[in-house]
């Protein structure tokens, strides 16, 4: 099955938040009526019951305002930190179409995925003690429907398709923007996580931070160490300990009390 992906063309985002609501509605989320956060952004960050957030960033450069708006959600990494960190088999799964999905029957709520994620996406629910994030509407994609956010997006900022097609489309669009004078326009598909199934076209790909995206996201080295060499080390220690003591016993046997007694 071909890997599917979501393309987010930030040059077409108008911050209308349709994707936020479509996500909430489709996934039957409970709504949180908040307090004023001093900004147009719905909430400071993603929540266990809010998986799709438009980040708003205001800048003034040389008297020219710019107001960047960008949809933020699970990136469905090719090399997913959450999957790497997850101890529970079948809790985080990669569906045949490449989607990184959580199966809450298997989630134990350890929250390692939260630490493993370089994009700070998964969130633990205080009620269910399980972790939640965007599923790329796996129930919709399974029957050939596009995810809810993509369906609703009025301005074509969001598109859905195979990863191969969308990567090509993203490159084309970046070239188009460059030709229109945005010389730093580019595609955000970070190699550090093996590429993502959520691909951005940024008006200024030289500064992904201005959108709130990490520059070079990778699975944190401590997580990689933990899930790689440390595991090997642990296995060696445990097995070595058991085998070592066993063979020690075979070779040297128990300590004798007489030897010492003789000395008296």
């Amino acid at each position: 099955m071909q890997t599917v992906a979501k393309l987010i063309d930030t040059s077409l985002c108008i911050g209308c938040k349709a994707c936020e609501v479509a996500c909430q509605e489709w996934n039957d989320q409970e709504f949180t009526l908040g307090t004023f956060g001093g900004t147009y952004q719905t909430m400071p960050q993603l929540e266990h019951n809010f998986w799709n957030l438009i980040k708003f960033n205001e800048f003034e450069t040389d008297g020219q305002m710019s107001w960047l708006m960008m949809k933020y959600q699970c990136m469905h990494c090719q090399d997913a930190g959450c999957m790497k960190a997850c101890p529970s088999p079948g809790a985080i799964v990669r569906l045949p179409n490449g989607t990184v999905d959580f199966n809450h029957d298997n989630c134990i709520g350890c929250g390692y995925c939260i630490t493993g994620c370089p994009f700070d996406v998964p969130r633990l629910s205080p009620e269910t003690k399980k972790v939640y994030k965007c599923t790329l509407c796996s129930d919709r994609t399974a029957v050939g429907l596009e995810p809810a956010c993509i369906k609703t997006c009025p301005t074509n900022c969001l598109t859905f398709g195979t990863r191969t097609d969308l990567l090509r489309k993203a490159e084309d669009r970046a070239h188009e923007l460059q030709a229109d004078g945005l010389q730093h326009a580019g595609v955000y598909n970070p190699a550090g996580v093996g590429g993502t199934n959520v691909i951005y076209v940024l008006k200024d790909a030289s500064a992904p931070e201005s959108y709130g995206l990490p520059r070079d996201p990778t699975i944190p080295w401590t997580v990689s160490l933990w899930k790689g060499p440390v595991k090997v080390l642990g296995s060696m220690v445990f097995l070595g300990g058991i085998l070592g003591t066993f063979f020690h016993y075979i070779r040297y046997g128990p300590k004798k009390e007489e030897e010492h007694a003789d000395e008296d």
Partner: protein
Amino acid sequence: MTTDLSRRGFLAGGGTAAVTTFGFNLEAATAVAKELKIARTTQTHSVCPYCAVGCSVVIHTLGDKARNVKPAVVHIEGDPESPINRGTLCSKGASLKEFVNSDLRLTRPKYRAPGAADWKEISWEEAFEKMARRMKETRDAGFEEKDSQGRTVNRLANLAMIGGCTDTNEVNYLLGKFRFGLGVLGYENQARL
């Protein structure tokens, strides 16, 4: 019209979770256990009631319209056949399900008596009787057949009507007949605001 999406296909293999508990199938591509909530709904074409872009929506209701089913809205999303919105919706349109299902919806006529500090529920019958009576009293008191110069004007200035911008043309046409039947001139809608 009913969707022909089958839930069989994507539920196949739903038993993997049990196997993985014992650790034998570590990278199981677990099937999506969540059922597509619009797999067996009835679809109705409608138009968003908010702004005047005029986005078409598809209302998904419970059941197949059989005699013993009371439909309830389970989902509303954009209608791809509309050249205007092509399936897309804004944040308000995307939440229309809540508009229909909201527990703040009014479901019974209410009446507030002069000087009362609270609503009380009232039957439609009583409400209609009372309202018709008030309208007649007001019209009898305020109807002008002739103006001060003796010209026929057949107008009613002490009763005003507003609204319509959220209702259909046909309802507005009926409101217009109601209005001119009473002789009302004071008739305004949201276009003035």
